[in-house]
């Protein structure tokens, strides 16, 4: 494997990690509106992700940084080409990020409501936009000979396929988050999270089917160098989704959570498999496709980065796992000692 291919894989892993981990944070954010019945319940839910959401977001930042370092042309084309979506994503991540800290610092009802909405918007918009980003990248965008994307917001970026992709990411995040709440809370909230997940299972399932059909119909995912993997991956995805039906009805939240997480692994990696060896597909001229090879940094730079990544990623994973171990207990009330 060439170093550039390794970095394409690694960036895929970072996005997978981002959706697996931050996916349930987004889902928990949504449940503060759609599941919680009162302030106390909202605060319990927020608390389930309190110690971990910030580190989970770093997966996205790292993915962005790795794109910049390993594939400058990919980073430059995507971030300038998706200008408006990135502005929206940033605004959403900003209001969500501060909502955790600001919310508890005020007493009034209006204050809490404001940050509740900030958290909600900041939990729905990012998975939607990430879904749109990946689906539209796979479908192809108008890319010129200078590698610049000149995409229209309605049409190239937002269309039936990408909207379905975005909604699928939102729904799967919510489902993922509901199982996380099931794992981290007790009694009534936990029971209702389970009820809700049964409804969301249907919605998410429909979106999943629509997403698979549209991917096959509207993209060239199956025709690429690794295209032969796409159908088997979707079949594994479908089997996992069927298994989820069983674990969910048996009230096995841990297994269900693992399954929705694995579904994110399949779905997010399917974009990378479908794109390879391209990183961006030009809808106007195949000659303008940007590939792993012509977008990559020099070998020297990639080698240095590989040493750093191979050293640091295991360490990061170790202390991340340790954090989840420390905060493994269920949360019963919002009044527990948190230091402040």
């Amino acid at each position, binding site marked *: 494997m060439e170093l550039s291919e390794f970095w394409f894989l690694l960036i895929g892993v970072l996005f997978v990690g981002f959706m697996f981990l931050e996916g349930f944070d987004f889902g928990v954010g949504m449940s503060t509106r759609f599941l919680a019945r009162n302030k106390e319940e909202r605060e319990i839910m927020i608390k389930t992700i309190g*110690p971990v959401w910030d580190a989970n977001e770093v997966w996205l930042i790292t993915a962005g940084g790795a794109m910049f370092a390993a594939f400058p042309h990919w980073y430059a084309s995507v971030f*300038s080409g998706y200008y408006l979506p990135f*502005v929206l994503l940033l605004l959403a991540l900003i209001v969500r990020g501060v909502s955790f800290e600001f919310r508890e*610092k005020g007493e009034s009802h209006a204050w809490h409501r404001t940050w509740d909405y900030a958290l909600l918007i900041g939990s729905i918009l990012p998975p939607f936009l990430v879904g749109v980003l990946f689906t539209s990248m796979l479908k192809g965008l108008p890319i010129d000979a200078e590698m610049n994307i000149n995409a229209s917001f309605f049409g190239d970026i937002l269309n039936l396929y990408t909207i379905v992709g975005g909604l699928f990411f939102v729904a799967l995040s919510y489902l993922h988050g509901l199982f996380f709440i099931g*794992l981290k809370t007790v009694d009534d909230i936990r029971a209702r999270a389970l009820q809700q997940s049964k409804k969301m299972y249907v919605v998410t399932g429909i979106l999943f089917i629509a997403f698979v059909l549209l991917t096959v119909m509207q993209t060239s995912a199956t025709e690429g160098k690794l295209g032969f993997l796409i159908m088997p991956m979707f079949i594994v995805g479908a089997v996992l989704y069927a298994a989820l039906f069983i674990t969910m009805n048996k009230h096995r939240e841990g297994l269900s959570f693992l399954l929705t997480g694995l579904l994110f692994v399949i779905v997010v990696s399917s974009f990378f498999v479908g794109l390879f060896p391209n990183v961006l597909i030009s809808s106007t001229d195949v000659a303008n496709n940007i590939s792993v090879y012509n977008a990559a940094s020099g070998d020297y730079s990639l080698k240095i980065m590989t040493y750093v990544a191979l050293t640091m990623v295991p360490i*990061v994973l170790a202390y991340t796992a340790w954090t989840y171990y420390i905060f493994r207990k269920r949360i019963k009330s919002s009044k527990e000692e948190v230091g402040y």
Partner: protein
Amino acid sequence: MEELILARLQFASTTLFHFLFVPLSIGLAFIVAIMQTLYVIKKKEVYLKMTKFWGVFFLINFAVGVVTGIIQEFQFGMNWSDYSRFVGDIFGAPLAVEALLAFFLESTFIGIWIFGWKKVPKGIHLMSIWLVSIGTILSAFWILVANSFMQNPVGYAINNGRAEMNDFLAVLSNEKLWVAFPHTIFASFATGAFFIAGVSAWNILKKRDLDLYKRSMNVSLVVGLAAALGIAFSGHSQATYLMHAQPMKMAAAEGLWEDSSDPAAWTVVANIDVENRESTGRIEVPYLLSYLAYSEFSGKVEGMNTLEKEMVEKYGEGSYIPPVKTVFWSFRIMAGLGGVLIVLSGLSLFLAWRKKLETKPWVLKLLIASLFMPYIANSFGWIMSEIGRQPWVVNGLMLTSAGISPNVTAGQILFSLIAFSTIYTILGVIMVMLFIKVIKRGPEEPKEEDVSTTDPFETGGVTHGAK
């Protein structure tokens, strides 16, 4: 052209806004870690109260710093895609390393620090805040690795029209990095220290919680004086660095059009006339510029006219002089405030040592004012550094005008500029309001609460939806 101005305005506003929070986070994390260490060693309850009280400011500030930092990382690709293509190989690498080495560390351990008071042993909890502090410092280091390349490109070769890294050690041992990194860290420690000193002074004047605020004052003044002296020494090494690596910036900072005499005098103030290329009405301190530039009392400094002639020969026709007035005055505001901080923290520390600080309300009032000084100095320091590099985005390699995204319209940049500025304003106002609220409320008594979590593997914790 419009795109260039808007993109620069966006970069300036985002960076300046982000850097209001960064230094306070770095400074407070460090000082809070010291306070918690004092608590663990001395086992005095007041140090715990201090840790928690100043920790509240740290956390609010950190949250805003994090979210504005995301824009910071994404805006290179959004507004400066041609720049990103050109330097990604060497500039992106430190950003990726920063995320792996620093962001994960600080975000994970800050979670443990906030939520882990009762969940991890004391020593581990103390380690968490130190790891957060180290994370913030590492983060500053790696972003300065990237910035130093823009100021003084080293360790690269141009291949296929891109700057590609060919010597990582050269990138890491960039001279600019090793003058800028200490300068930035000392400035950050000073920001944290004078923040604590200022808030403590206000409370001491009001005779509130004297024990806690006096101890806080002592810790912050020690850090503050050390940091202020560190700023001055590292600032001096910045100047000597500029002399040979970025002489144009130095000449602009001095408003020096023609070559200076030997020895060179330092200009305190002058009336700079950019159109006629002259600076009049100079008030000068003899020998001082030679000393700043070479650490000795002789040596002349080249003026902008000479330097521009050399650059035209090297790079072709064009104007290579940065906005002189901005650089000149930014330098003076920054350095002047740095001087004030040294004197003020020295004097205050002396008075505190003689137990006389409380009896000198005018000193306390000055300390309140000193809270704002590092913020102003930090901002003007970056303005001097970045404006002084113009018209280059990468010194000598790429012009700023060549770096913007060709596919992004002025309308798009204007939209995002308005959106981000609005959110910055809102965040800024809220943060100040929250700070004032916390200051007025004062430190809270540490409370003993029962921890009522349930282990999911215990029978009591598992109550399947049977309700």
